[in-house]
């Protein structure tokens, strides 16, 4: 067990070990690579969107347990969500880390990151996959909007 260090609850370790969504998409609509230059953590996030919603997601993540747990959580839960929902989840995680806010009802799993509140240097670890997904989705939406014949649909390239 964690010997009193509740940062490393079983839920975090299991989520990281599960590595949901780990891998690569055959034909992603968009992607983003983010790293934390201060520690070397890296996330490569790929998405396929359908009508503005995440149809598929894959990530390659090198980082600590918090970073990998966060990526895995997204791999498990992000499908079907649109940019606004991802932004909301990211904001919720940030609030939870910074101000010990409660996890929102749509994302009860975020609660596993609450003990990281006490360790500001680790906030970025948990946030990195969320920010990478935000960036990937935002870029994809932007490209699809510019490239699409109309504003109502999009053509896979």
């Amino acid at each position, binding site marked *: 067990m964690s010997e009193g260090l509740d940062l490393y609850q079983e839920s975090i370790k299991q989520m990281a070990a599960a590595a949901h969504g780990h891998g690569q998409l055959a034909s992603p609509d968009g992607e983003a690579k983010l*790293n934390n*230059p201060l520690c070397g953590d890296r996330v490569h996030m790929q998405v396929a969107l359908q009508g503005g919603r995440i149809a598929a997601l894959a990530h390659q993540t090198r980082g600590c347990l918090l970073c990998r747990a966060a990526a895995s959580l997204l791999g498990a839960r992000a499908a079907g969500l649109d940019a606004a929902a991802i932004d909301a989840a990211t904001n919720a995680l940030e609030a939870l880390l910074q101000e010990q806010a409660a996890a929102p009802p749509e994302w009860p799993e975020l609660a596993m990151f609450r003990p990281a509140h006490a360790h*500001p*240097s680790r906030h970025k670890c948990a946030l990195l996959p969320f920010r990478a997904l935000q960036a990937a989705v935002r870029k994809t939406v932007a490209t699809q909007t510019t490239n699409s014949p109309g504003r109502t649909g999009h053509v896979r390239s």
Partner: protein
Amino acid sequence: MSETDLLRAEFPLLAANPGLHYLDSAATAQIHRCALDAVVRHETGCRANVLRGSHRLAEAADRAYDAARTSVARFLNVASADEVVFCSGATAALNLVAHAFGATLRPGDRVLVSQAEHHSNFVPWQMLRERAGIALDLLPVTASGELDLAALPRLLSPRTRLVAVTQCSNVSGAWTDVAAVVEEAHKVGARVLLDGAQAVQHGPQDLRALGIDFYAFSGHKAFGPNGIGVLWARGDLLAGLPPFLGGGGMIDEVAIEASSWAEPPRRFEAGTPPIAQAVGLAAALEWMGGLDWPRLREREERLCADLIDGLLAVPGLRLLGPPASARRAPIVSFDIAGLHPHDVCQVLDHHGLALRGGHHCAQPLLAAFGVDACSRASLALYNDEADVAALVEGVAAAVRTLA
């Protein structure tokens, strides 16, 4: 005790030297107790390197360093703490601009500086001229050492990329009409760098209201520690600049073939920064932020006017700077016919008056005044009527001693 006595008591060196008339704050202001305490508290309580170590001390040091950035941003009233770059001093900050912004200039581009600049805002631009083939234009000064703003329009051109001027001269005490400079400079698309080294000890700044693009100052002139300074630049501008120094902390990723850079402000802070000094500076700025500045400024101005009046009664004494009636900082430089400033300041020291005689790192301005050196008295919030009276009497004594 008078208000000033109470203030002096907060400055350890002044408290320990009641007979001292410290009139050299333009060179270095005395350190406020809170700044020194903050340094000691940091070094004994949470000394660690920053850059996101995860042990407790490292987290505490990171937090303290980030908080210091926020304090500086508040003191300068700027949009974001991420626009605040810590350097070792104003000189380092000015050189950073000359290199990072300088790297974006092309041969034939122009930089305009004034003849009132401190060497630290003059020599870096001469060096950039040699390095990058830019042209350097010189804004002249008036007979009293103020920037000759009437000459500004004809000295600006569409090739002018930067106007780098002092906010307040360290010799004449003249304040620059920043709004006028910004208006003219921005008309031709030039950026404005303001050297705030002499301004910060006279109160918090409102850089957003000034509308400038770059600002530099040193901690030791703002009642803070030595070895720390600040460069502020507008966020969008900073984001587009290449780094200056290379090393730990300023990178995104280092590979053998090539490296990439971190986001500002870290992009411009290579190596272990002056952490304890940043924390001490923040304490000094927070303390300043709580003072009644309209009142303090009014007193500084009154003392300055009294000092100028008293000095002008000395036969052969010439004031190098605007008259008492002008909007000016309490920096009073003077020349006494036939007497060398080193000798004058030596005699003044004998009378417990700490002044500086020399070229004050402003040889171009002194050339405009037609002198090689001068004596300078500079007042800060801890000076009072007794200092002014002692100096007027001391100068008379110096004349007697040296004649």
